[in-house]
């Protein structure tokens, strides 16, 4: 099949959906500039022009309400945030209105607003530009929260968002943008709430989403050298969250490690561990382990940053610990962004 990068897949999904549905428009800071949100909106702007792809004044909260109102009138707004961290400013519109719209107005209709938020990572992005807010978006009922880990899912989940009926938040990890993979040319949807087995295995299950599904797969490679067969699960969505795929894998492996790009406390990693404790308890042969950033904001200094982000080594080490095969890992891995040259 034809291969695209993660970023190209996002662009293609946007352009193809816009060609299909004249009600889709793209709005956000810089969606029409020469950078075009790391290239993901540039082609849409070229094809559909300023009438359907337009820059906005600053003002995240109002823009969110404006998107909701446009959706209430039949439009399909796609709002892009260069960093998901800026979305703290629109949580009222997101949680107190978009997420509750269908329910609190009596189940007449939903508001099909789609928000893309980019998760910065590394290169000194620091405390307010490299958070990954899936846990916050997932906690409050009403939103679909998708975090694609592959180019195919980056396209398929965005297609589901732009053709679905509910408010959607898609978080894209900047470190995945250059990742290449096979992507169907047609408009195939990837349904919300259904995870995928990235790699089958028998000894232990590693669950992650977004960048952590990718890093988990790299961890599984390392584990092979230690004769450990790890099954890697990509949840794809934080809400709805696919409990079944986790339990199915646990039935086979009996062991679970969860990796997440965000903190442990009340995070997606907590939810996955809770599902195991609630519904997978009888399968568990060992304690669950969470691999997450430590309990501090993202630092800037390179050595701290390297220690802050979970990586294939820390994930693999956690697996060996669970398996009591506690060999300290000699292997070194190259950082997922090793070749990245700043400024961001």
């Amino acid at each position, binding site marked *: 099949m034809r291969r695209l990068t993660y970023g190209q897949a996002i662009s293609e999904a946007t352009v193809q959906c816009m060609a299909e549905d004249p009600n889709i428009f793209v709005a956000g800071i810089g969606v029409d500039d020469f950078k075009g949100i790391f290239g993901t909106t540039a082609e849409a702007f070229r094809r559909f022009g300023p009438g359907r792809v337009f820059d906005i004044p600053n003002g995240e909260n109002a823009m969110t309400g404006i998107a909701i109102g446009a959706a209430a009138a039949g439009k399909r707004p796609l709002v892009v945030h260069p960093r998901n961290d800026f979305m703290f400013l629109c949580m009222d*519109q997101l949680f107190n209105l978009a997420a509750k719209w269908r329910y609190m107005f009596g189940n007449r209709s939903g508001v099909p607003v789609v928000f893309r938020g980019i998760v910065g990572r590394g290169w000194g992005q620091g405390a307010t530009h490299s958070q990954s807010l899936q846990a916050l978006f997932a906690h409050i009922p009403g939103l679909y929260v998708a975090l694609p880990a592959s180019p195919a899912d980056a396209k398929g989940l965005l297609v589901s968002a732009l053709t679905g009926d509910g408010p959607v938040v898609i978080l894209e990890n900047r470190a995945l943008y250059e990742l290449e993979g096979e992507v169907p040319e047609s408009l195939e949807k990837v349904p919300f709430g259904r995870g995928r087995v990235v790699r089958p295995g028998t000894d232990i299950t590693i669950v992650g989403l977004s960048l952590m599904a990718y890093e988990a797969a790299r961890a599984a490679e390392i584990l092979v050298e230690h004769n450990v067969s790890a099954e890697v699960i990509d949840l794809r969505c934080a809400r709805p969250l696919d409990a079944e795929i986790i339990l199915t894998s646990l039935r086979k492996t009996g062991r679970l490690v969860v990796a997440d790009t965000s903190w442990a406390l009340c995070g997606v990693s907590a939810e996955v561990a809770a599902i195991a404790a609630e519904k997978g308890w009888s399968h568990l042969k060992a304690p669950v382990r969470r691999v997450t950033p430590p309990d501090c904001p993202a630092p800037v200094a390179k050595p701290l940053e390297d220690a802050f982000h979970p990586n294939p080594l820390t994930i693999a080490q956690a697996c060996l610990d669970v398996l009591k095969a506690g060999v300290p890992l000699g292997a070194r891995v190259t950082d997922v962004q090793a070749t990245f040259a700043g400024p961001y």
Partner: protein
Amino acid sequence: MNREERLLSEMIRIRRVEETLADLYPSQEMRTPTHFSIGQEAVAVGVCAALRRDDVVYSGHRCHAHYLAKGGDLSGMVAELYGRETGCAHGRGGSVHLNDPEAGLIASSAILGQTMAVAVGTAMAFAMDGRDQMAVTFFGDGTVEEGIFHETLNFAVMRRTPVLFVCENNGYSTHTRLDVRQPAGVPIHARGASYGMPSRLVDGNDVFAVFDAARQAVAHCRRGAGPFFLECTTYRWREHVGPFWDYDKGYRSKAEVDSWVARCPIRRASERLIAEGSCTTDRIAAMERASQIEVDAAVAAARAAAFPAVEDLTLGTY
């Protein structure tokens, strides 16, 4: 009825509905925090009378009058306050989430300023599609202080959206007077004008003045000239939330309340039409009777209606 009479009778209808609900409220059957518009009817009636049915209105927590003036279904509203399945939000939303899309009342919300931005989004959608509909958002003087007010007005002007901002200035945000919340010498209509859109101040207790101003504003929006701002001065008679009078609570005087009751928009409209000979006390009494019959029937129907079924608790979620 001619138009003047219709404006009057619509105000009377809303007053009858709200006073009736206020009288019943203490019985604890309407279990939903309720913000009555009694005394402020002229703003809702005057503005909505200048709209087409396919224009849309967004409101906030004090939404009863806007809902009814735009043509929202009365029995759906009453049933919603009684938490019944027959309510306009099927008992899920309560008093602050009235909506009747068929009538063009798209949504109300209890978080200050939310629907200001939403109205601009709907207006933008109309403009993008070349439709000649427009949107109106009602909000209070307290909402003017929220950041979203600023972001929204700036955006509305930059995109020339056909939206009418109607600030219902009743002088208070909960129990706090306007003069301790906003700078002296900067009236709210001037703030609206400061974004470069036409802005007017009008007596919000004079339904005819409101209607005339709204007609001008609607014409402006309809012709694609961008947003319009209307500040309507009025006054809330009852407590901020709930059915009772509260001039004994210390934050405002009985004299102040009385002075506004004396300026009752219904009395003023009645007196004028009677003086002009275009209406009579009999006709007005008839309007009141008709409204009373209507609201009594709505209450009876609501109380007889079924509550939502517990099995449907999560209906409308995936």
